[in-house]
């Protein structure tokens, strides 16, 4: 019994210590913006690998999710004879929830795991150490561009996801099932508010982007430098990012949309 208590205590302490380490790591990364001349090309390269290369999976997922929403929405709403509200339903679901959340989950799986593995491997092969010994701070040179790239790419991906999803929903609802397209767009426009819905959705994805890339680069940087260490760090990235996104989504939703 005391053994278990002790183990629980140890686990709690190491969890708090790990949180503290990740906080210090974040501070070390963000303090001191990289030199603009060398920093921008590095940032562009990272936005490319984190954002542009995730575009395909985001577009395809967005399209299918939008189409499924169209089909499901139509079956349910046509029972009440209000299938014209389908546009409103699709747009609100995507812009407020599915856009930011699903994009963040895809991002964690596609880009976050790659980030962790890349940084973990750089650590294992002593590339980070050798950079330090060359008088270059790896936090600023390697970590900071990746963190910022995730932060910038995520909202862009989420917005593209929502647009493609709405287009997919329109494809199913208007083109196949014959909902009148004036009513489709009209209902959508009268119910979606730019600031309350669209901007709040973007804020959500900015938060998710930050948290996901933070977790990914931290797990890579903090991993045990062996192949088993990298694999467990990659798993942790996906698991922690997904949980963090879903948990934060609840909190953010409660704050943004909870007052009615």
């Amino acid at each position, binding site marked *: 019994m005391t053994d278990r208590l002790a183990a629980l205590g140890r686990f709690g302490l190491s969890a708090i210590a790990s949180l503290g380490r990740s906080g210090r790591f974040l501070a070390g990364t963000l303090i001191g913006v990289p030199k603009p001349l060398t920093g921008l090309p590095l940032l562009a390269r990272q936005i490319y690998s984190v954002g542009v290369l995730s575009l395909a999976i985001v577009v395809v997922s967005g399209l299918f999710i939008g189409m499924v929403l169209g089909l499901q929405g139509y079956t349910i709403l046509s029972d009440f004879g209000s299938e014209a509200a389908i546009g409103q339903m699709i747009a609100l679901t995507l812009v407020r929830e599915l856009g930011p959340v699903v994009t963040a989950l895809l991002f964690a799986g596609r880009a976050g795991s790659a980030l962790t593995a890349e940084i973990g491997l750089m650590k294992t*092969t002593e*590339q980070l*150490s050798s950079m330090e*010994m060359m008088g*270059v701070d790896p936090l600023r*040179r390697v970590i900071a561009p990746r963190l910022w790239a995730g932060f910038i790419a995520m909202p862009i991906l989420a917005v593209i996801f929502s647009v493609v999803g709405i287009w997919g929903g329109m494809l199913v609802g208007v083109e196949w099932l014959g909902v009148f397209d004036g009513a489709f767009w009209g209902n959508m426009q009268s119910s979606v508010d730019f600031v309350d819905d669209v901007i709040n959705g973007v804020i959500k994805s900015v938060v998710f982007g930050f948290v996901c890339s933070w977790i990914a680069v931290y797990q890579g940087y903090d991993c045990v430098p062996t192949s088993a260490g990298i694999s467990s760090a990659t798993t942790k990235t996906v698991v922690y990012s997904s949980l963090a996104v879903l948990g934060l989504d609840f909190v953010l939703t409660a704050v943004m949309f909870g007052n009615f």
Partner: protein
Amino acid sequence: MDSSAFITLKDVVFSRAGRRIFDGVSLDIPKGRITAIMGPSGTGKTTLLRLIGGQLRPDSGRVVVAGQNVPALKRRDLYHLRERMGMLFQSGALFTDLSVFENVAFPLRVHTSLPEDMIRDVVLMKLEAVGLRGARDLMPAELSGGMTRRVALARSIALDPELIMYDEPFAGQDPIAMGVLVKLIRDLNSSMGLTSVLVSHDVPESLSICHYACIIADGKVIGQGTPDELQSHPSERVQQFLNGKPDGPVPFHYPAGDAGSDFGLAGGLV
């Protein structure tokens, strides 16, 4: 040692994960000479280099490099000091996403604002020094182990450092690559007047090039001096290490409990 010590370690104590790795190590590394630090595997020789480079901090004691106490340096000063050091990692630690040329150019691009054609000249000069000017467009994955280390060497001397540290430069190299590295280390030292610190457990190669050697075991310096002095060192442990005897003061058996109980013989070994 003489007063021209480039690096001085004084009573350095360092422990990691509850294990004491250094227990009061003191040593001087003279300027402009090759110093070999030898010892059995797992005695923290690489850790020693990291202490000198400021990547680790000792629990107590002083690590003085070029007159500056490394553990007490601020981040900015530490990074400045590191520009004057080069380190060759055991694995080479080349940046895998950059070509050989870009790897060598990396410190120049970060720390200097030289124009592109100057960088090109310097990089080719350094690659020429390690005999790999022709390999400049290869990627690190296309290099053999020995070539990787030579490129890494070219990279660590790109900024013309005053100190260069070699971490196990001979480990896992074939005899030819080893010969090349021995020659390079010696040439660099004599031509550029570098202070070189060499960490290794390859006794013959290390003793053949170093001016001064020091043997570490169990967290302490157990012997130091010129190679000749060491060969006639009175300590049994030094002799055991230098001559590679399997048993001696460093026991063949890892400390274990009574053999009889492990093998299930209740009355002990008969």
